[in-house]
């Protein structure tokens, strides 16, 4: 079979070519200068049947170790093993959601538009701010966009970023800063594991960036961060964990101007890191600086409620080089998924995910720290995740525990100058973890640490 998804029969191709006054398919490419045309075709294997390709995928999959009963997951670091119920998978995979384009024609896109509106409504509440966009690529890029918003809004390029922000996100911020010209400064962590705002220079700034719970799992007191923002005239950007809003004060209510986050925990599978879901929320007063799409409610010609993408004048297709963001395609399907997952959870369910994760994490922490070989890394309160140190290097430990059937956690290998952190292990427990699993893990951990 030449091209399995091209419907045209040879006869039809001939007819169409005749209609166009052409002799062969090659004639279609007359305008491509002969000198650059590819001779001999692409150096790829010929097409294969669905069965053959799926066979090959099965082989490759067999060389992965997915999390599950054979590899119990205690890894986090920004990607969490939360429950995704059958109903969320079933709804989010409905082909009308999956195979639609960006809702450019609202009259035939009310399904996606309304789902986004509901997503925006729920996300804004979780963040404690007024406005949410329709999603960004992931948490890292949401942080970058927040930094852009802050510097544009304040006209100040100085950006102070807590060392407690996910080092991968900080690296991404640094990458993009080479284009945007932001002047990044890192604010160190104090001995308890939360940001030490005392040392920052008093000069004016555009953005102050902090994560809570932070990368080491510690819940930050946003008071000093807010004060620093006030003092420097900066926007306070908080990277939050939407699940934590099930039990913690929302960052918005604690003073954040912009709240960003990774939404993977809301119904998206671990998926080797993507596609995930960048959350972006801000105050109404910043709405015209919002990156990405925004869905608003309106009416149709017969005054029926209807939804539509709005304030489009912000976006790149209209503002072009004057746009403050270039985002076009985003992560709508994950946003729809998150809306479904949050609908499944409801008020009580979200609280329960957070609470059950906190219980599992506490139990795990106590179990690990009871081992003679482990040491705590931080002292501030944590929720779902925390760091421990062992004499064995974390990467070695992880390898050993894989053999025992556990994904033990994520070694803290980059982005921290603090030597206490070098090779410590970040461990997380979600509501899916049971006492039996944690007990078995702690036992294996002890054995592996020796």
């Amino acid at each position, binding site marked *: 079979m030449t091209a399995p998804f091209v419907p045209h029969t040879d006869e039809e191709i001939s007819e169409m070519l005749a209609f166009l006054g052409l002799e062969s398919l090659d004639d279609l490419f007359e305008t491509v200068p002969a000198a650059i045309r590819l001779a001999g075709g692409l150096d790829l294997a010929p097409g*294969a049947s669905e069965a053959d390709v799926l066979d090959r995928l099965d082989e490759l999959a067999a060389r992965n170790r997915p999390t599950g009963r054979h590899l119990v997951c205690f890894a986090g670091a920004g990607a969490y093993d939360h429950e995704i119920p059958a109903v969320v998978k079933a709804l989010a995979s409905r082909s009308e959601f999956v195979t639609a384009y960006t809702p450019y024609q609202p009259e035939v896109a009310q399904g996606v538009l309304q789902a986004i509106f509901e997503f925006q409504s729920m996300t804004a509440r979780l963040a404690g701010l007024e406005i949410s966009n329709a999603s960004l690529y992931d948490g890292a890029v949401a942080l970058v966009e927040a930094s852009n918003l802050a510097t544009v809004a304040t006209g100040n390029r100085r950006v102070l970023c807590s060392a407690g922000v996910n080092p991968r996100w900080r690296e991404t911020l640094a990458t993009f800063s080479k284009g945007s010209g932001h002047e990044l400064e890192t604010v160190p962590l104090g001995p308890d594991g939360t940001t030490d705002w005392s040392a920052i220079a008093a000069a004016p700034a555009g953005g102050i960036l902090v994560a809570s719970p932070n990368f080491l799992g510690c819940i930050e007191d946003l008071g000093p961060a807010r004060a620093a923002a006030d003092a420097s005239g900066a926007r306070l950007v908080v990277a939050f964990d939407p699940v934590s809003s099930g039990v913690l*004060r929302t960052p918005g209510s604690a003073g954040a101007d912009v709240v960003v986050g990774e939404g993977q925990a809301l119904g998206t599978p671990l998926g080797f890191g993507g596609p995930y879901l960048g959350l972006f929320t801000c105050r109404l007063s910043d709405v015209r600086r919002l990156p990405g799409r925004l869905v608003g409610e309106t009416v149709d010609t017969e005054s029926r409620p*209807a939804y539509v993408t709005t304030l489009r004048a912000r976006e790149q297709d209209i503002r072009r080089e004057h746009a403050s963001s270039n985002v076009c395609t985003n992560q709508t399907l994950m946003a729809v998924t998150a809306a479904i997952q949050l609908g499944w959870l409801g008020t009580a369910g979200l609280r329960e995910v957070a609470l059950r994760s906190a219980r599992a994490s506490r139990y795990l922490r106590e179990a690990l720290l009871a081992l003679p070989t482990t040491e705590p890394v931080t002292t501030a309160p944590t929720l779902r995740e925390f760091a421990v140190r062992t004499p064995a290097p974390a990467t070695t430990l992880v390898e050993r525990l894989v053999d025992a059937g556990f994904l033990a956690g994520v070694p803290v290998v980059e982005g921290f100058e603090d030597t206490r952190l070098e090779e410590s292990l970040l461990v997380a427990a979600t509501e899916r973890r049971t006492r039996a699993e944690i007990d078995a893990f702690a036992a294996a951990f002890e054995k592996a640490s020796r």
Partner: protein
Amino acid sequence: MSPAPAHEQGSLTPAGGRARSTPLMGRAPEPSLFELSVKGRRSASFRTSGLPDWTLEELVPEAYRAPEPVELPEVSERDLVAHFTRLTHRQYSVDLGAYPLGSCTMKYNPKSCDLAASLAGFADVHPASPPSCTQGWLELLVELEQSLCVITGMAAATLQPPAGAAGELTGLLLMRAYHSANDGGSPARRRVIIPDSAHGTNPASVTLSGFEVTTVGTNARGGVDIDGLRRVLDTDVAGMMLTNPNTLGLFEEEIAEITRLVHDVGGLMYYDGANLNAILGVVRPGDMGFDIVHLNLHKTFATPHGGGGPGAGPVAVSERLVDFLPGPRPVRRPDGSFGWHKPEHSIGRIHSWHGNALVLLRAWTYVRLNGSDGLRRVAETAVLNANFVKERLRGTYELPYDRPVMHECVVSARSIAKETGVRALDVAKRLLELGFHSPTVYFPHIVDEALMIEPTETESPQTVAALADALVQIAEEARAEDGTGAAAAQGAPATTPVGRVDETRAARHLIATIDQRPPSGG
């Protein structure tokens, strides 16, 4: 049991939502999930953990605790399902019919790609797993990178960018890093040239990467105005971004000359791969002289668009840029196993993890299914369909640049608008009534009343003919003497889940969350 007295009977109208199947039946609106909510109703359930049931008070200090819970909709699983299923009945999609949005390449997405992305052996892998747990994933990514290089004619690629625009920004940062390294650190080259027909993400990305946009015009044949280009070229030019075929659906015939001119002043050529579908297996950006190429896998490689994403925008580069690519990159180690490697002069990471991995998996699957011959056939039939539709519209719509097109054609409703008042937007809305999604309208900006039609290769000749017939019918109706046809088009669509939507009101009275709704409702 004895029922309550009659006068009390009507009294119970329970709060919260109704479960009704609105979409099948007329055009009744679907209430929001919030309106379906009833306090205390539940769907979620959790695994039995056997853990101590510490209270929140025992776990979190008061200062951090939420004074009261964030209110989310509370619905039964049944109503959750009904709500979102009904929403899908208010949504057009490729799986329902043709979606000829120009520049978007809304082709059919093989269901085996969905299946692939749902395999637990891929979907349940934690991104921070050690390489010993991800050999299958790494091999797949390395294979995909190689395939994309073969297809584009480049040396290496990063798979991190999660969409086309992210790819652009990545590519421009690579351009920046390259020049910085060559200019000894200072970015003397500050301008990037873009044709006036370019997609909006191009200029926006240029600004975000710290460059300035210089616009170059379009000549009468729809190509880059070469003289204009010559005029703006200088040694402060970092490079030029181009999509070829361009957004008019036309192949840039002078591409060799353009790349030569830009290279001559030391600039790099950036290829916006959104239109790559047209040239798969026919001609490669590398062979045209491009140095940096982004691909929109969610367009060309049939990874579905998800109502607005996710996508994937890998960036492939020529040899001289390889060392600057974002890292870590999946690589084959000398011993045949797979691992990660960060290029020496890497610009750094541009994604939290490794890119939109499950989207990359779909693209890998698509490439395998099609193979070398299949990909070329994709391009051929995509181009065939576009020319077919263009020729069937000849005489009805204006053809502003009347040349054979590649995978899409841009026609203009300008004369129709002048004669009848029926604008491109009205044509689009009327087409919805006839059962097709509309083409892209008012883009590219350089064409008045533009309709940008990209049938893609997965639509049959019958569908393409029907689409063209519908567009002709609309024009004919609009031109009807008595004006009823024009009025109908301007009032369209009448048979869709909602009628024409008031976009102005949405922007004037912003209601972007349920909490912004005025108390009386929208």
